[in-house]
């Protein structure tokens, strides 16, 4: 797997997560941290539930979780304001929650509820509400970068404030032409699009060594003329600090940013995948730390909360998620006889339907 050089380039011992001194004393930072943590916790609960629905055959198709990616995801979601554009991908449950998505929508989309945003037409992680700035990914990786850019472009052309956009991707998606064209376009258009790449060391089974040959993907930033940010994806402190700073920079300068976070994917590619191919050595390195565990430890060490509180939050999340799921399971699923089988917005143009 020719991972050796890369392995050596990774830190061999955990860079002690340090409480930023300025922040330790800063109440609003503590609030933000705990808020983020609780979204992460909740996302993990939701995804554990999804995985168990999948295992029990209640989800048709695939099931994808963001285990290990929560710190990055939540930071992206938290950095956004209402009305900002968000284009998440498969590992962003925590970010979706932080951005304001109802926990119900995950279940609705996986279970195909007619009341969900996709109404059973599209499923699992392919969900969003574009009318609210929340894009629904298509599967083709990289495609959302230009779409998010276009949303901001549309706003600017209309003379409105653009807000910012955050688009998330895996490192594998950086190999697509769409990623390149999209980021370059955002740079040329000088639009505040923050592209957050989670380099979780694998794209499905493919290691970094077969994905790119540069030392770090963050070195790509300069080649697009955008600012680059190198983030420890296992450390919520680092993620929150840098991703919110990148978002802030985008807001202030109106310019794109490229964030590259490093972490290890702590699941299979999907729940069908046992990830046998993951290098055993990698799993022993700091990059393999579970960001949720790291955050828990940090909270305890710094007395942001005690163990009881953490457990209580988790229990609360579980109760809430259970009850939401129970409701969603009672929601109506699509009825083919009620479908018009017409996919055009314009009246009168559907063949065989509109009398055409």
């Amino acid at each position, binding site marked *: 797997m020719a991972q050796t050089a890369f392995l050596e380039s990774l830190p061999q011992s955990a860079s002690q997560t340090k409480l930023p001194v300025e922040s330790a004393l800063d109440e609003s930072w503590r609030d933000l941290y705990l808020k983020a943590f609780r979204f992460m916790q909740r996302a993990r609960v939701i995804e554990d539930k999804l995985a168990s629905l999948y295992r029990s055959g209640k989800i048709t198709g695939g099931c994808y979780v963001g285990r290990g990616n929560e710190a990055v995801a939540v930071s992206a979601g938290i950095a956004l304001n209402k009305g900002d*554009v968000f284009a998440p991908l498969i590992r962003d449950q925590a970010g979706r929650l932080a951005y304001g998505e109802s926990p119900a929508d995950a279940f609705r989309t996986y279970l195909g509820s007619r009341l969900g945003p*996709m109404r059973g037409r599209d499923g699992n992680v392919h969900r969003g509400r574009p009318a609210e700035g929340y894009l629904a990914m298509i599967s083709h990786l990289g*495609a959302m970068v230009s779409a998010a850019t276009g949303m901001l472009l549309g706003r600017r*052309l209309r003379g409105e404030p653009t807000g910012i956009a955050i688009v998330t991707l895996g490192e594998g998606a950086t190999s697509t032409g769409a990623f390149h064209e999209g980021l370059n376009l955002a740079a040329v258009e000088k639009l505040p699009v923050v592209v957050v790449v989670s380099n979780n060391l694998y794209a499905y089974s493919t290691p970094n060594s077969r994905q790119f040959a540069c030392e770090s993907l963050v070195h790509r930033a300069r080649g697009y003329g955008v600012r680059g940010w190198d983030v420890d994806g296992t450390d919520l402190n680092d993620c929150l600090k840098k991703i919110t700073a990148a978002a802030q920079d985008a807001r202030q300068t109106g310019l794109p940013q490229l964030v590259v976070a490093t972490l290890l994917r702590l699941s299979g590619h999907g729940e069908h995948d046992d990830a046998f191919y993951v290098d055993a050595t990698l799993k022993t390195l700091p990059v393999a730390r579970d960001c949720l565990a790291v955050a828990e430890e940090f909270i305890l060490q710094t007395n942001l909360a005690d163990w009881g509180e953490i457990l209580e939050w988790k229990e609360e999340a579980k109760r809430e998620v259970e009850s939401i799921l129970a409701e969603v399971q009672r929601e109506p699923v699509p009825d083919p006889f009620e479908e018009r089988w017409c996919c055009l*917005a314009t009246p009168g143009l559907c063949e065989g339907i509109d009398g055409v």
Partner: protein
Amino acid sequence: MSVTYLDAIREAQAKALASHPGVFIYGQDVALFGGAFKATKNLLQQFPGRILDTPISEDAMVGAAIGAAAEGMRPIVEMQFADFSTVGFNQIVNHAATLFWRTGVPCPITIRLPSGGTMGSGPFHSQMMETVYAHYPGLVVMTPATVEDAYSMLLEAVLEIDDPVIFCEHKMLYYHLKAPALPTVALPAKHARIARHGKHATLATYSAMVHEALLASQQLATEGFEIEVVDLRTVKPLDTDTLLASVARTGRLLAVGESFPWGGVTAEVVSRAADEGFALLDAPPRRLNAKDTPVPYHPNLWTAHRPSANSIAAALRDLLRS
């Protein structure tokens, strides 16, 4: 004063820009330069800030248009040549075409494809692409053959249709096809049009081939046959009613297209006629397409590659004999 097909396209865009603040034009060399074919000439001066040059990034151009459309804009994307839309293919067929159905948010973008062959343009600057786009649900595919249609159908595409429209404008018609003035009334794009009335056979076609068809029909007229030419105008949706009504009058059908022979408009037309209009047909319905090779560069080959008035006339004689 007369108006060319290209003028009509420019004027339609000017009118659309003037009528709706959400309209903007996005493409390579469309701003100061006015487009490779000058379809956006002077529009930048009239509508500053709304005609934007893009990098050579067809995927991102379409992606950005989709995002803007989701925000309520009505972008026009100019592909420099239809052939280059293959690089934006995914965004068109999988993103633009599915957006409304998946999310309920309409995607009113018009993608202008300078299409079709002109001499010496070769395999990559000559293609017709209506076939691949019409295949995908969620797209409207227009193929205007006249100056009037170039104008009114483009206006309808940009201002009235809330779905992605693939606007196949034919480069052969740009400079040579003229009309006395821009139209003031218009047939909705979804209707086909009888371009010439006749009774012995129906010739269904679209885009530049309409003119070859009319020439062929003139030849046949001198031989005593009245050919009815149906200009399909829009190939998705396809106006089967007008087609069948014509076949009902004539009993014979030839479908002509400039695209490659496998699949495409002629297959769709003939198979609809055969299915829905079987009893109306007095003879086997026929097709005539370009040959099954890339579009050749040299004029000798190019002329033989695509249907022409002569080869259409020959096919009509065959049809009338059968």
